């Protein structure tokens, strides 16, 4: 039906690498019940991107990544500060933090509109279809292939390296933070490290898939895998598998419907997720509303 297409191959490979990077981080975020913190970070990096853009004058500068990284960590610290010092409940801390930072980002964009070729749509949606024509060309004029693909490779190496290096620490602090602290793991440093990796991944992939879709890749494949298994290793393997499957199927469906590739990837991820829910549960309880079931005679 479809012959081998180099562009399709490049897009799928890049998308898979982004999906794997996000999934690897997402597994640990989910186990730490920090999925929404990931969402908050991906919105909160906007002012950092704008400031980095202003400093470097281009969307591709190192300054953009540094700015976004700083803002991501700042968002994490602010959520923590609101929760622990000001005693605001966690979900409200997350909501206040990311809306404030995102609002500041949009204001910055409006103030510097004449200098910043950015808008909130580009941050939220992204577009991976332009990947094959956005080439990395060295000063001597030699082309090394798509720029975003190289970013994704670098991202995957860094994330993979981070996880491999701190696997034990991440595992212990994700399941039992107090125990981790007792046996001498610097839990808050590990946490900050994870958050910086999330911010970095958001920035490095927002051009390709957009902030919301980074969140989807952070959350949906791990959640899908979690429906099938609770053990960490299979969880990670299944997450990677889901991420790759999502990229391949998403690309071809997007091709078929002539729509956004990143959007279709998330849609496919959602379909796989809901199919998994159905297959892993034989009987359903239908209830209206979100109230807890009351169980008689339990204490």
């Amino acid at each position, binding site marked *: 039906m479809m012959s081998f297409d180099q562009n399709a191959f490049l897009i799928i490979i890049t998308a898979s690498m982004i999906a794997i990077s996000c999934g690897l981080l997402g597994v640990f975020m989910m186990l730490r019940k920090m*999925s929404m913190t990931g969402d908050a970070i991906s919105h909160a990096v906007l002012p950092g991107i704008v400031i980095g853009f202003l400093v470097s004058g281009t969307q591709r500068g190192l300054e953009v990544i540094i700015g976004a990284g700083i803002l991501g960590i700042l968002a994490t610290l602010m959520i923590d500060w609101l929760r622990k010092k000001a*005693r605001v409940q966690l*979900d409200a801390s997350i909501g206040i933090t990311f809306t404030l930072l995102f609002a500041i980002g949009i204001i910055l964009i409006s103030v510097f509109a004449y200098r910043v070729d950015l808008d909130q749509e580009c941050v939220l949606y992204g577009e991976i279809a332009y990947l094959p024509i956005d080439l990395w060309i060295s000063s001597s004029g030699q082309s090394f292939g798509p720029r975003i693909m190289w970013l994704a490779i670098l991202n995957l190496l860094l994330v993979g390296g981070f996880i491999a290096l701190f696997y034990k620490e991440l595992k212990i602090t994700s399941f039992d933070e107090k125990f981790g602290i007792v046996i001498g793991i610097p839990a808050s440093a590990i946490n900050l490290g994870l958050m910086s990796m999330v911010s970095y991944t958001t920035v490095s992939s927002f051009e390709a898939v957009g902030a919301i879709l980074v*969140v989807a890749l952070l959350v949906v494949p791990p959640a899908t895998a979690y429906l099938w298994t609770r053990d960490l290793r299979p969880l990670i393997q299944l997450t990677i598998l889901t991420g790759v499957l999502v990229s391949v199927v998403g690309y071809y469906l997007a091709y078929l419907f002539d729509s*956004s590739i990143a959007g279709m990837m998330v849609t496919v991820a959602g379909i796989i997720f809901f199919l998994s829910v159905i297959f892993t549960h034989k009987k359903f309880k239908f209830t209206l509303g979100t109230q807890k079931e009351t169980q008689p005679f339990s204490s």
Partner: protein
Amino acid sequence: MSDFLYFFSFQDSSIAFVVMGITLLGIGSAFVGTFSFLDNKALLGDAISHAVFPGICLGFMLAGEKNPFYIVGGAFLSGALATFLSSWLKSNTKLSDDTIIAVILSVFFGIGVVFLTVIQKSGNPEMAGLNQFIFGNAIGIVERDLWVYGSLSVLIIGVIGFMLKEFQILVFNPEFGKAVGLPMNMIRFVFDVLLILSVVIGIQAIGVVLMAALLITPGTAARFWTDRLGILLGLASVFAILSGVFGTYISYLLPQMPTGPWVVVILSSIALISFLFAPKKGMVSRYFHRRSYLQKTQRDHVLKSIFKARELGQEGLTRAELLSLYPHQQSSIKNSIKSLEKEGLLFVNQSLIKLTEPGKYQAKRVVRLHRLWESYLNEYMNIAPDHVHESAEKLEHLLTPDLEAMLESRLNFPKLDPHQEQIPRDHDEL
């Protein structure tokens, strides 16, 4: 200044429309948001506001134009589907709340992006304004919108006012509601409908991402000022109105400035001020409260040390002796001695620090409470005498005269504590 007067006299009808729209919208979302904040579901509103995106696109595709009824209808239906799915997933999977919210939010938004690109490729000229439904455009509120969205807001405010008792039970004690025969599922359903409605109408003013602020921030900030629900709702709506009006004013003064983000920035500033400076719950007030408590405990300890020295037959303690008892708190002990002396509880006589009569009274009370509590723990909790000191060390600063009287009568006015030390009474000689 003339700008200020022109704006706030609302001579310009378009300004009046925008301000009215923002005000109604703000009150509506502040009410709904405060309840979902109290229900520990602050982020459900965020999920819904992302989830209405595919509904907006679908409504547009079906109508072929920006027909507000199709778009609001589509938005409402997809918001409802998201709400239903999130509660369904909660009862059918073991995923945690925040994972479910994040899954719903991102999957719906992804589907929305697919729809949007399909619309964009269809080349419908009407689609140019579709972004307004997604990123919000408060300044674009015109008279016709005001009638539709304003009356919906009034409806939301009215229903909440009318069902205040029911929602209060829903949030604070649904079990009780069920027990007295209230239709709790129905009430929750009504509440979910209101939440989705306020998101649907709010998004057009402020946008998908920032809608969460309109729901979460006013209630969270107001919660720092009061414990009463009525005042909480009132304050939350005042905060929402203030930020709405001034956000609009800023974007009126500087036309290139977007309204929604400024509303959020002002709202967040109000929240941060509340977190810091609210009486009782604010960080500053809690800091001073804690400091004055620590000072009180330390002064009690100084009095107690001198009292114990007297029990051993000394007249008082020298400054050096007293300081050597607290090697790590030298400077604060010096302050405590100074303030106790000023209040007439201590007097310093040739470097010997002694208790005055009021000082003796106070010191006896602290020691008495300490030893009564030790006796109580020993006698009624069966805790060994060598384990009771730590707890008494804390409770001696907290026990009230009422509790003291109860302990005395329960223990039948004991003479000695578990360590065989005398329990001093007011009339005892020292």
